[in-house]
């Protein structure tokens, strides 16, 4: 497989690839590389924190007093932050790369948030479990998650007075997309989801007495449907496969849809709604490696952040700062803006996020300093300048970066070739000329320079 194509694949289904690994993979053919990826993601490693204290509180033996509820909330807030940090670490160092990237993808599809940590951890791992599985099972599992029945109020959806929130988002955001159902479809399907609830521990409970047993008419069919029936009927509509494939295409391939390519994915996906199969098809397709798809997408903040961390392992001494950075970049894991999630693409970039993105690599890796030493002059003042930057900005982010790891990984890469490994796209002419005029003090300094370019925002 061509080096460029392996890189492209790994930018999209991962967060980049290091030279040592790249060299190994480029000796294999495409099929072998893709199979490797899929095989490595066969296993499922849930991401879990110690929740014993919460489990105790939710065991039912404690009284539901104001004090206990407050305790659950306080611990939950703390644990959610910890999970965020653990997730970042997981993403930067996983063996199950495709599964983890897909989990990230689905977290912005089945968008959900809950203030009870036990429920949100369970939801989070349901995403991971089904990330490469069968989409029909996936939707059904999601509809029964405690966090989801709370988030979209299915829990309050009762026979006498249906609450339409979940039914609407199920079709609008999770399966069909706006315009492919009527207000009546929403009303009728909301009736089918009546009685959905959960117990204190977060397990699904079907409250039969709250369920509307009457006949519902949905997409022209009538019957005493329950929630699973509704999901079956929705997925019979090819539009559902199309909606999901378009989303995958925009996420993994290109912001701009190519109808032919998407339609070929839809045919694969609609056959059995197997997510792994459609991903395999996509990664093996020649069009996936078209020039127009390489280095043309804007990284999401998390892809950007993990990309840095993957190349130069960086440890945040204060985890709060890791959350703060996500906030400044416009994407906090486990804290979506609303049920539609993050819009992505050019929407990641505005005046605020662009300056933050350009400055961040130097802020966390190099005391905010980007080397500007001219060619032919040694940057004698560099160290003094760095100290100055450290004084001014160093207090903002307390980080430890493992440059030894970087040096080892890039040992066989010539400093003049570093750009080919760090950047996914060609360099803008002016930027290239400016960089040429600068002295390449060290691979480390040059790496920070490269990461401070707008080009580094692309994947």
């Amino acid at each position, binding site marked *: 497989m061509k080096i460029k194509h392996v890189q492209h694949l790994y930018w999209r289904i991962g967060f980049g690839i290091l030279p040592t690994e790249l060299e190994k993979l480029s000796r294999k053919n495409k099929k072998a590389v893709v199979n490797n990826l899929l095989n490595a993601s066969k296993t499922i490693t849930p991401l879990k924190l110690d929740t014993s204290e919460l489990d105790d509180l939710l065991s039912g033996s404690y009284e539901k007093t104001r004090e206990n509820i407050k305790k659950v909330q306080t611990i939950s807030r703390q644990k959610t932050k910890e999970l965020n940090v653990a997730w970042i670490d997981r993403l930067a160092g996983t063996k199950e790369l495709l599964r983890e990237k897909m989990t990230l993808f689905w977290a912005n599809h089945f968008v959900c948030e809950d203030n009870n940590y036990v429920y949100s951890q369970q939801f989070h791992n349901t995403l991971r479990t089904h990330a490469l599985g069968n989409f029909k099972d996936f939707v059904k599992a999601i509809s029964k998650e405690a966090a989801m029945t709370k988030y979209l109020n299915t829990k309050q959806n009762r026979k006498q*007075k249906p609450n339409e929130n979940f039914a*609407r988002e199920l079709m609008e955001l999770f399966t069909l997309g706006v315009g492919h159902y009527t*207000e009546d479809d929403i009303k009728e399907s909301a009736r089918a989801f009546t009685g959905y609830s959960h117990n204190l521990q977060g397990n699904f409970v079907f409250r039969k007495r709250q369920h509307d047993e009457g006949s519902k008419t949905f997409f022209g069919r009538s019957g005493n449907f329950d929630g699973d029936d509704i999901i079956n009927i929705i997925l019979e509509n090819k539009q559902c496969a199309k909606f999901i494939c378009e989303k995958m295409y925009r996420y993994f391939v290109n912001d701009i849809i190519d109808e032919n390519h998407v339609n070929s994915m839809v045919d694969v996906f609609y056959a059995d709604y197997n997510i792994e199969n459609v991903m395999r098809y996509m990664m093996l397709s020649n069009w996936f490696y078209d020039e127009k798809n390489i280095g043309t997408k804007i990284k999401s903040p998390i892809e950007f952040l993990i990309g840095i961390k993957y190349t130069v392992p960086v440890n945040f001494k204060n985890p709060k700062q890791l959350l703060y950075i996500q*906030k400044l970049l416009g994407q906090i894991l486990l804290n979506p803006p609303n049920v539609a999630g993050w819009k992505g*693409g050019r929407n990641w970039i*505005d*005046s605020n996020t662009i*300056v933050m993105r350009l*400055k961040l690599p130097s802020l966390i890796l190099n005391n905010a300093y980007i080397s500007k030493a001219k060619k032919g002059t040694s940057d004698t003042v560099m160290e003094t300048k760095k100290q100055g930057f450290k004084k001014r900005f160093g207090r903002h982010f307390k980080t430890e970066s493992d440059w030894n790891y970087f040096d080892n990984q890039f040992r066989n890469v010539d400093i003049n070739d570093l750009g080919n490994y760090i950047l996914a796209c060609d360099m803008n002419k002016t930027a290239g000329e400016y960089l040429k005029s600068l002295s390449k003090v060290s691979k480390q300094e040059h790496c920070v320079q490269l990461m401070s370019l707008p080009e580094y925002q*692309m994947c």
Partner: protein
Amino acid sequence: MDRRKFLKRSSLASGLFFVPSFVKAFEQVTSSYLGYKRLVIIQLSGGNDGLNTVVPFRNDLYYKERPTLAISKNDIIKLNDDVGLHANLAPLKRLYDDGYLSIINNVGYPNPVRSHFRSMDIWHTGTDSDKYLQSGWLGRYLDHYGKHPHSAIEIDESLSLAMKGNTINAIATQDPKAFYNLSKDPYFKNIHNHQNDAHLSEHNLGYLYKSMIAAESSAKYIYETSKTVSTSKEYPNNSFGKQLKTMAQFINSGLDTKVFYGSLNGFDTHVNQLNAQKRLLKTYANGIGTFVQDLKDNGTFKDTLILTFSEFGRRVKQNASLGTDHGTANNVFVIGEHLKKQGFYNNMASLSDLDDNGDLKFEIDFRTIYATVLNKWLDVNDEKILNKSFKQLDFI
């Protein structure tokens, strides 16, 4: 140089420095001479329940459809014999009494969409409900009439669709100092030196370069101009209050900005609406009350028009969870000194003549409000921006 040009230039130049107060006073004269007008948009995200905001407390149907959610007659700030404001909107009542508030009822659009995101997009882009646009109405105002990206500023961490143009984006910033500090590394200037702007936005990388250049120059201007002013007003201690405080600082420092955008989230009240809305309306009204006072004290209120909207109202009938589901038409608040129609612009919606979903029927297309504001307040060609001709209303 004629007087008009002279005044214009001197007011632009002086914004860059820490200006002595007599020049400042002079500037205020110039701005009123030149008719410098700015627009503030406040978005209530999630679909604020308009019926529990502006309450028809004599309407039996209202109490019948909302047996436990309706606001009782005793909890209302009465505006007239039939209609009152939610109890937490006292600061708005003061604006009403001063003739600074106009309430436009039953605002919506044909074939309403009850999805937050779609409906929000429709309000932001100003398009028909079955059409999709990638640019917002204020963004297109920038495209045609904005001199710089900072001609429109959103006080937030990211930019709303409303503020994204086809060729120019507005600036989003919450903290001008941090924004400036981050942007000023000379490395960034050097990587785009002599960059040819023409082809910059064609592809994603060009878009990044263009965003970077715009951010740099605006960050410097906004920071250096706005730091000349600080407010002593006590704003409510919440993020909405902080937003308004920053906005007031921008306005009072004479920033060359025509449009400001802020928002308050959390109005999606499917469950236990009463307390949530109570808290949110309090945050909104107290913030706005302080903001208006701040502008008044600095002589900038007379040139400011504040428009508050939400993507839709809620259904008339309450749901089983002591909340409300997504509805359609809603009220829009216009706040300013130059209102032609103070108080109520039109009557409340009928609660007996609802659509098939049990939602209010809309009477006023929100785009007629946009058209009016663009034409009569910002003094620009509304048709060019809205891509269509809309009737002008008579509130300003």
